């Protein structure tokens, strides 16, 4: 049986990764709203490039980092919802979780493309978030596929 509820190691690994994502996105949201560069060690210049680029706010208003934070908090909510509630939609959480994670992976892929080929500067925080979202999506996939007839 591979459902969300009972696959213990996968479930707790996903929670740990979601919390990593919340931490990364929360930090990037903070620096974005305060208007400072993130701490990037030797890649300080690259981080400055990425975090002052024209792509850093959607519509010039919504910071991409805040969108990422909302994404990870939504995943956290679904994780909780799928684990400890018995509402009529609780059974849908594996699918909802996987689809949301997939959206995160696709958008992260776009952001990584921008960093690599347009901005030519890599922000390790952004790469970390992209990798985290990808692993979460991979771990969530079996539970969603298990819902298929």
């Amino acid at each position: 049986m591979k459902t969300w509820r009972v696959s213990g190691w996968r479930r707790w690994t996903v929670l740990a990764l979601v919390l990593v994502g919340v931490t990364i996105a929360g930090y990037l949201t903070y620096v974005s709203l305060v208007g400072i560069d993130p701490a990037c060690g030797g890649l300080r210049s690259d981080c400055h490039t990425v975090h002052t680029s024209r792509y850093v706010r959607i519509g010039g208003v919504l910071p991409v980092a805040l969108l990422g934070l909302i994404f990870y908090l939504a995943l956290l909510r679904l994780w909780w919802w799928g684990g400890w509630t018995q509402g009529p939609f609780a059974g849908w959480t594996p699918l909802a979780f996987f689809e949301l994670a997939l959206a995160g992976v696709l958008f992260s892929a776009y952001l990584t493309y921008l960093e690599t080929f347009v901005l030519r500067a890599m922000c390790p925080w952004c790469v970390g978030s992209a990798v985290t979202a990808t692993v979460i999506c991979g771990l969530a996939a079996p539970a969603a596929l298990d819902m298929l007839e």
Partner: protein
Amino acid sequence: MVRKKKKAKGGEPRSPSRSGETVVTLSRRTFWLVTSAVVLWVALLVSYSAWQGRPKASTVSEVLIQGKVKGSPEAPLTMLIFSDFQCGHCGSFALTTARELEEEYVNTGKLRMEFKHVIVGSPASLGAAVAAECAAEQNRFWDYHDLLYERLGASLDADHLKQYAVELGLDQAAFGECLDAGKQRERVLQNTLEGRDLGITATPSFLIGDEILRGHLPVSTFREVIGAVLMKNMSEIGS
């Protein structure tokens, strides 16, 4: 764990199983429909992001030229340098590659270099850029520019910026008044907006003719592009 699967078109939530788990099954068609909707939604978001990030102008003539210039006004080619005083790659360019290009092209009358500020995120960068413009009021922009890059990583607070003016022998009263009043702030921000309209998304970036270069590239790349644009301009004049 027990789970009862019943055929259900499109997917339906079932009653909790004996273990208390609510179980849902869905058809492959429904799964792919939902997945396609997610992909479509992300594609719309990406399209919007790419659209808002597009360049709004494509040639030098479409932007105001009000940066700081080095070289003859008669030079056949202008190279715009979009730079930030807190950017390490910008400093490396300014202190190495730019000096080679200056000797090779600017001093021989082939190229005119023009500096443009690109400030978006950091208030300290803005302060440094305003200070450089205040130095420009005393015709010492490039000296102040070089000093800022030589001291890259040092504090850019007002006291340090004024100390640099002292080191360069600038009129301290005039410099302090300019800096404290933020007189050149609008000019710096205008430079930044011009850069954005050209699609400048990173520092350092360069516009040579209609060619945009990004990052601190090897001097050979600059030579190649400058040579090609000069040749193109010559052939256009010839025809």
